[in-house]
């Protein structure tokens, strides 16, 4: 969008969260916290006030940012009425998460199919009717504030107790498990089929971008080219899992698609094993 000031400031505001994650889990992003049976680390009593302090600071700074950008006319011009995904299209293309909620579809798997502690920590669905970039942005802005409320409530009501269940036996092969969770981009669905030797046999992931990506053609129909990147960015895509390699020979115009095996072989060769 060419508006790096706000981007950089929001990243600065986010940074204390990353430091907190590092202290709670041991890493900034790849937390390695969940195992079958529970989590590996508990939140200590020293960490709790630190979390609340960070959350307070973020809330204050976040509200200041929202207040500041609200009247920014050029910013609003690039968001309002751009990248319209009509309510009916959102339903037809089965978009999820903030993309759906920005088009007035009130779905949130934390509320619709509560899992983990979401029976106790009940998020409020943030829905906007605008159907455009601005609506999707507003949904995210409001959800940040809502998440802060959930963190506060969670810290206050966190029960004592063991964090890991004992699983003395091997998990039998041939069992299946499916679960929908609400990721920041929408519904993430994982399917696992267990195999021999306590290992999974098949693991299928349907990340929310699969669904949201489908809606791009209707979202960008008839738009100015310069607005297209903003519209695509507004549903926060993560393309890496949709990448397929197609090689076009420029002389003959022949197209060749690499197979799964070829890609694995190439990556093994590249990574030296």
């Amino acid at each position: 969008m060419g508006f790096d000031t706000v981007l950089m400031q929001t990243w600065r505001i986010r940074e204390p969260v990353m430091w907190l994650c590092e202290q709670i889990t041991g890493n900034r992003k790849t937390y390695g916290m969940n195992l079958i049976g529970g989590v590996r680390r508990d939140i200590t009593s020293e960490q709790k006030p630190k979390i609340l302090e960070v959350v307070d600071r973020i809330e204050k700074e976040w509200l200041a940012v929202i207040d500041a950008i609200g009247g920014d006319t050029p910013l609003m011009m690039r968001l309002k009425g751009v990248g319209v995904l009509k309510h009916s299209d959102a339903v037809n293309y089965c978009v999820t998460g903030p993309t759906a909620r920005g088009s007035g579809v009130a779905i949130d798997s934390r509320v619709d199919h509560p899992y983990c502690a979401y029976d106790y920590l009940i998020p409020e669905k943030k829905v906007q009717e605008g159907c455009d970039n601005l609506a999707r942005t507003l949904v995210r802005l409001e959800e940040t504030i809502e998440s802060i409320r959930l963190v506060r409530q969670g810290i206050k009501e966190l029960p004592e107790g063991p964090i890991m269940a004992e699983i003395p036996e091997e998990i039998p092969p041939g069992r299946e498990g499916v679960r929908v969770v609400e990721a920041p981009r929408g519904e993430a669905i994982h399917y696992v089929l267990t195999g021999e030797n306590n290992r999974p046999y098949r693991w299928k992931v349907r990340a929310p971008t699969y669904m949201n990506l489908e809606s791009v053609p209707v979202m960008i129909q008839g738009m100015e080219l310069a607005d297209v990147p903003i519209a695509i960015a507004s549903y926060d895509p993560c393309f890496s899992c949709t990448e397929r390699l197609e090689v076009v020979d420029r002389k003959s115009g022949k197209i060749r698609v690499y197979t799964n095996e070829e890609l694995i072989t190439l990556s093994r060769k590249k990574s030296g094993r």
Partner: protein
Amino acid sequence: MMFKSKLKEAIICFKAGRVTMPFPLGPELHPPGDGFRGKIEVDMEKCIGCGGCANVCPARLIELSDSETTRIIEYFLKRCTYCGRCAEVCPEDAITMTREYQLATNDNNDLYIRNELYMGTCGRCGRCFKPQSALDKMMVTGFRQKTEGK
């Protein structure tokens, strides 16, 4: 309206000041939080070659291979996710998670550890095996070959 908004944005920026850090970072200059899991370190004197770490590593980057009396354990750390499972299961506490996080390199060998262990050979099948008793273990310690991370 817009001028006011720009002013507010400027105030946010000035209030924050400069937050980026000059480049040569590192665990000494900018220490990570407590409990941080960085690059793994293997104490080759302690390792008994049980292969437990290779079994749990979710990235499958620890490879075990036997040749007669030697067991070779290789760590291809460029694929490490820093989950710390290997350090958790190691019965001899041979693996520790250091606080080192500046691992960018253009030499693959910087992220490679090779550990060669002298092991007993099974008289029947000829494969390496872990000497069972503590006495056996003491016997083989002297035969250990140590190679630095090459």
